[in-house]
Each structure stands twice: as C-alpha cells, then as structure tokens.
C-alpha cells in the first residue's frame, strides 16, 4: 500500500476544488436552513441552475462568458422566486417536497432528448470556460506543489479564485447575519408567529433568504462546471443535495464557518477511505470482493452509504453539529 499517495490525495482533498464547490453550496443551504429554518431539499437544483445558466447561455446563445455568469445568478434567483411563491406561506415540509421535486425535474429536463439541442442532453455542454482559464497566471497543464498539497495548474487557478469567492461570500453572510436583517431571519427560524406579531413580513424575508441562498448555490454550480469544463445533467443528482446537508450538519447549522469545516472534513474522509480501499493489498482486496463485494463500483457507492448513514446519525444525535454544544441542543428540544 502506498501510504504516501493516499496521504497526498487526502491532503489535497482537504482544500481541493470539491471542498470549495460543496462549501459554497453549503453556505447557501446554511442561509436557508441554518439561519432561516427553511427545509430546502433541492440545493442541487440551484447548482444546476447556475451551471446550465452559464453553460447554455455561452454554448447555445453564444453569449460572452462573463455575461453568462451574471445570467446564471439571475436565473437561480428567478428559480428561487418561483419555488418560493407557492410554498413559503405553507408549513415547512411543503418547501422540502417542492424543492426536491423541482431539482429532480431540472435534471430530467436537462438530460431529455427534447432539450438536447439546448442543454446537450445526457452528454451536456463542454468547452465554454475558455475565457476563465485565459486569465490564469498558472500553466494549466503543469503540476504545482505547496507543502503537502499538489495540484494541476488549472486547478490552482480554480482554487485561487474559488477560495477567494468562498471567503468573500462567507464574510458577506457573516455580515448580513449580524445585522437586524439576519436577526429577523433567526427569529423566523425560532418562531414565525412571534416574528409576525412583531411586525415582520415573514413571507418576504423567507423569500429573500431563499433567493440569497439559492444564488450562492448557483455560484457553487458555476464554479463546479468551470472546474470540470463541462455541464452534465447527471452530476446534479438529488443525492448531492443531501451530501451538502451532511456537510452542513457536520459543521453545525447556523454557524458561519461550518460549511467550510464540514466540506473539508467530508472530502478528506471520503478521499482517504476510497483511496485506502483502492490501495488495499491484492490478497485482502480479493477476500473483500468475495465476502462483501468490494468492487471498484461499490467503493464509489460507499460514499453515498456513508452520506446516508452519517446524515441519519447526525440528525438523530448531533443536529447541532459535531462541534456544537449540548446546551444549544437542549434549547432546541425545550
């Protein structure tokens, strides 16, 4: 077993592009769930909206790449508005039904034959992120090492831009959550009727929150497709939404830095486990294949088994996150 390789991969995963993308999506979900109490079960739909917003406007409409990015945010905001209109007046679980349904519908629509001329169907859209990489000060195809971390030049550029965005957006969220606006959101999370009785237009705030968090989700989607240089419908599977939920709950909902912490822990763990399993000595590996069917395909599936099991256990025993205090949980169950 090549422990050096496994550790190198795990270290690189700790702050890698996936962490940035998932942390951004989780920042959006944190605005929704952590601060406002909105049960958004379709965050991946907002990522898809961002991804297709830029991919389609550049590839199909032939727009300028940067205009495409702006369009992606507007598009995600409009999507949030449309999903919020029928649901935000209703009990919390209705939003979850509609968002999960909508995110799955977006995926099915994008991969359909009918939409193929626009979205590229199952194959998706490629080669549109050129202008982004043109700006890169790093050689795209060269490997760069920083201490234990090692990335391709194109990823270094993505990481530089990505982390800058992530930190800026996180600071922005921290700023608004410390303001009276954020206080009102947190009040709504605790008790809508109390906020209403104190003159707050709850529906309006929830809508703002849904749009704000959805647009942050779109940033994640845009960054993801830039990094992959392609938009593919099946990468926006509902299970991604719940990976993001797991990440958020690992870090602790309603805490500013939890999305970054959660994403980093999640990806380090997953990359470590997957690489370790792939690198097992052949004899042991064969035994495991025979006894518990540990094929390459199943190693990939293991990630989702961990996500599911993790989410189940976290929601049950540590809904305040692994760093949250017991007292805080006691307040929840009052």
């Amino acid at each position, binding site marked *: 077993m090549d422990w050096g390789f496994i550790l190198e991969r795990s270290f690189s995963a700790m702050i890698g592009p996936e962490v940035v993308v998932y942390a951004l999506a989780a920042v959006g979900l944190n605005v929704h769930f952590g601060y406002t109490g909105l049960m958004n079960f379709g965050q991946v739909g907002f990522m898809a909206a961002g991804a297709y917003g830029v991919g389609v406007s550049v590839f199909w409409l032939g727009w300028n790449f940067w205009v495409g990015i702006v369009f992606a945010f507007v598009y995600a905001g409009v999507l949030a508005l449309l999903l919020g209109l*029928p649901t935000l007046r209703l009990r919390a679980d209705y939003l979850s039904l509609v968002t999960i349904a909508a995110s799955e519908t977006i995926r099915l629509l994008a991969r359909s034959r009918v939409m193929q001329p626009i979205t590229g169907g199952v194959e998706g859209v490629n080669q549109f992120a050129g202008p982004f990489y043109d700006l890169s000060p790093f050689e795209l195809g060269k490997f760069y090492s920083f201490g234990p971390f090692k990335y391709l030049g194109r990823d270094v550029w993505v990481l530089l831009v990505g982390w800058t965005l992530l930190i800026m957006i996180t600071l922005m969220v921290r700023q608004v959550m410390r303001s009276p606006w954020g206080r009102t959101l947190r009040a709504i999370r605790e008790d809508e009727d109390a906020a209403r009785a104190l003159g707050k237009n709850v529906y309006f705030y929830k809508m703002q929150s849904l749009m704000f968090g959805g647009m942050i989700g779109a940033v994640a989607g845009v960054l993801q497709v830039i990094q992959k240089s392609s938009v593919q419908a099946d990468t926006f599977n509902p299970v991604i939404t719940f990976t993001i939920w797991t990440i958020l709950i690992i870090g602790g909902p309603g805490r500013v830095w939890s999305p970054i912490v959660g994403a980093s822990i999640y990806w380090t763990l997953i990359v470590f486990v997957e690489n370790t399993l792939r690198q097992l000595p052949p004899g042991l590996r064969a035994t495991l294949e025979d006894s518990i069917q540990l094929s390459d395909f199943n190693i990939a599936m293991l990630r989702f088994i961990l996500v599911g099991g993790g989410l189940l256990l976290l929601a049950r025993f540590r809904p305040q996150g692994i760093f949250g205090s017991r007292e805080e949980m006691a307040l929840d169950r009052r």
Partner: protein
Amino acid sequence: MPTNSRWARAIATIGLAVGLGVTAGSGQAQAQVSDDLGVIGTLQYTDATGTKVFVAGVELSIADVGGATSDKDGFFRISVPVPGEYSITLNTATLPVGVTLKDPERANLVALVSENADQRVIFPLITADSVVSVSESNFSVRRISQLTLEGLKLGLYLAMAAIGLSLIFGTTGLVNFAHAELITWGTLMAYFFNIYGLVGTFGFFSVLPPPFGGGVNFIVATLLATIMGGVLGFVLNRVIFRPARASGVSLLAQMVMTIGLSILLRYLFVYFFGSRYRVYNEYASQRANEFLGIELTSRDAAAMVVSVIILIAVGIGLNLTRTGRAMRAVSDNRDLAESSGINVERVISQVWIFGGALAALSGTFFGFDTVKWDIGARILLLVFAAVTLGGLGTSFGALVGALIVGVAINWSTLVIDTELKNMTALIVLILALLLRPQGILGKKQRIG
C-alpha cells in the same frame, strides 16, 4: 411490558439480519457481473389484424463490442463496457421474409448509454400488410382510452404506495422520504424470492431444490415481499423512529433522518444488488390482450384487480376494524386519541407495518417491466404529488390523488414527450399547493 419490548427488539434484530442477509446472499448469486450496462430493445411489428408479433433470430451488433440475437420475445441485449455512445447495427438479412425496417435508411442507430442504465433502442419494423397507424391522430378516442387505462394502472399502484406515506404522516406528522426505499424493497424482495427461492434468498442453501433453493412462483414471491415490507416498516419504526420520538427529536430533524435513511438504503441496495436492470422470472414480457382497441396484458389486468381489491379492503379496514379506527383517530387528533385510551405508539407501529407492506406490494407491481435498485426513488415525486393533492394525512385522499396523478401523467404524453411525463407530477404538486394546499380531501386547518 418488558417482555413485549424484548420480543420486539429480538424481532427487529432478526429482521435486520434477514434484510442484510438477503441482499448479501443475492450478491453472490449475481456472479460478479462486470457488464452492468447495455443496449436493449424489443423487435416487434403489428400485423394486419393489429396483433403485435415479436421477431426472433435477428442479429444485432455493435462494432468492437459484441452482438446479440433477438429471442422469442423479440428481446435483445448487448452489454457494453463503459457509458458512452455506441452505434448499433441491425443485420437486415436476418429479418424474416416480408418483414422490413420501416425506414430502410435506419438499420444503424446511435445509442447513448449513460451510467447505471441500459439504453433502449427502437428499430421500427413493418410488414407489407402491416396496419399503418401513422395517420391516426394523437387525440383519438382509442389513444385517450389507452392512456386513461395506463393512468389508472399507475394510479392504483401509486395509491398503495401513497396510503402508507399518508398514514405515517397523519399519525406522526412526519413526511417519510424513505418511503421510496420501502417500495424498492418490495421490488427487490419479490425478485429474490422469485429467482432464488425461499431459503436461497437468505443466502444459504441455494443448492436445494425449488422452492427452497430455486425460485418460487411470482405470486408467492409477491406475498412474501409484502410480508417483508411489513417487517422492514416495523423494524425502521422500532429501531430508528420510535426511539427518536421518545427522546424528543424535532419533526424537522426526523425528516432529515428519513432522508439519510433513504440514501443509506438506496445505496445499500445498489451495493448489493448492482446497478444492472433485471427482470422477474415470470410475467416479464407478455402479449397484450386487446379489447375495443385498448391493450392490456393479463399480468397488468390481474395486478389492477388485486390493487382494487386491496384498496377496497384497506378502506373497509380503516373504517370498520378496531385497528383501522384507532389509526384514523390518531390521525385526526393524537392527544384526544391518547386521552381516550388508545395506545398511540402501538398504532404508529401498526401504521408502519401496514404502510411498509402496502409500499412493498406496490413495488412488486412497479417492477414488472424492470427491477431496478432505485425504482422507488424514481417515482417518489409521483407519490408526493399524489399525497399532497389528496391531502397529507388522509388515506382516501391519497387514493384520489394517486389516480388523478396517474391519469394526468399519462394524458400529458398527448402533448409532451413521454420522457418528460413525470414533470407533470411537479406541475400537479405546485398547482395543488397554490390552489388548495390542504389537498382535495384535506380538512381546512392551519397549514401555514
């Protein structure tokens, strides 16, 4: 009642062990297929009398990958190594005399194989005396009747799945996102009993003669799958949700738990079952019977009749039996039910068993065409639309909602591509929430 609870725990443990054993055992029988993906299709044409005829013995091939010959049901499958684009060719020389491609230019089709799914291709065939139905209008009475029938069929299956979801919501206030996996569980259980038999399913003794080692009759397999559905429902409530309720986990947190559970189960299924599509030993493909131009296989007809009987029985049971009335009482007003001496936890447990069994039964029917590891997740949206439309928490509403959703989805194919028909469910869901959030049969109360 310490004895009682110890028993419950023992049963729960056995149930879990059985459940895991089932999936683990099956995997070995699966013989490590590496060819998880493929291009499939069915060769058929409609003859002068309007009957479908399947074409056997036709050779098809994908260059550099492999080939296949269609079987007596006209079915063929060519395995491919990785997802991607494949060009599949039909050897026209092997077609029976008098049968030709409808479009002679299209003996060569491109199949786009995606991850986790077989890709179906269609080679339209005709004979000289084929009834050409191209001119038939989309909106013909025949077509609409056919779609309505398909819709009712879908609606009946959906209703069985939806009632459990609705009852669990009614009694506990919990939207169970893992309900989809209860449906899949039924499909997979039926498949395993059907293919591997009574004991073979549990991972041992697969060398024994049928019905122990070999597959059992599909009807028996369906019954067993339904029972296993009840067992899983019981176990999930006993091991996960009852303790959560007891320690005061909020409903929203419980909802997140159901999502975690749903993903856990779904990916355990794919882990042990594989992503390949399979079919039951029996009833996989049947020739349709025709009545007044409407086609229905005997299999589907039987399943529909069974569904109707079950749903009527459920309706009678909920209204006339003690258990059923207790379920409705708890749904109506939990506190009142509790203060009038009903053991609420017991009722909730019964609801999970009952809902799990119904979901599993619907799963066995949904699996008629293909058995898939995520079959439940694919229709979860429809189930949600059905229960929301009918009114969350009302069992009769779930039935009405399911029938409407089933028919609406099939009718929608008159105007939109079949591939997108499930989108109709989202539209139904949103319209229901906009116009009547409490559902058609829901009581008007505060839902906001």
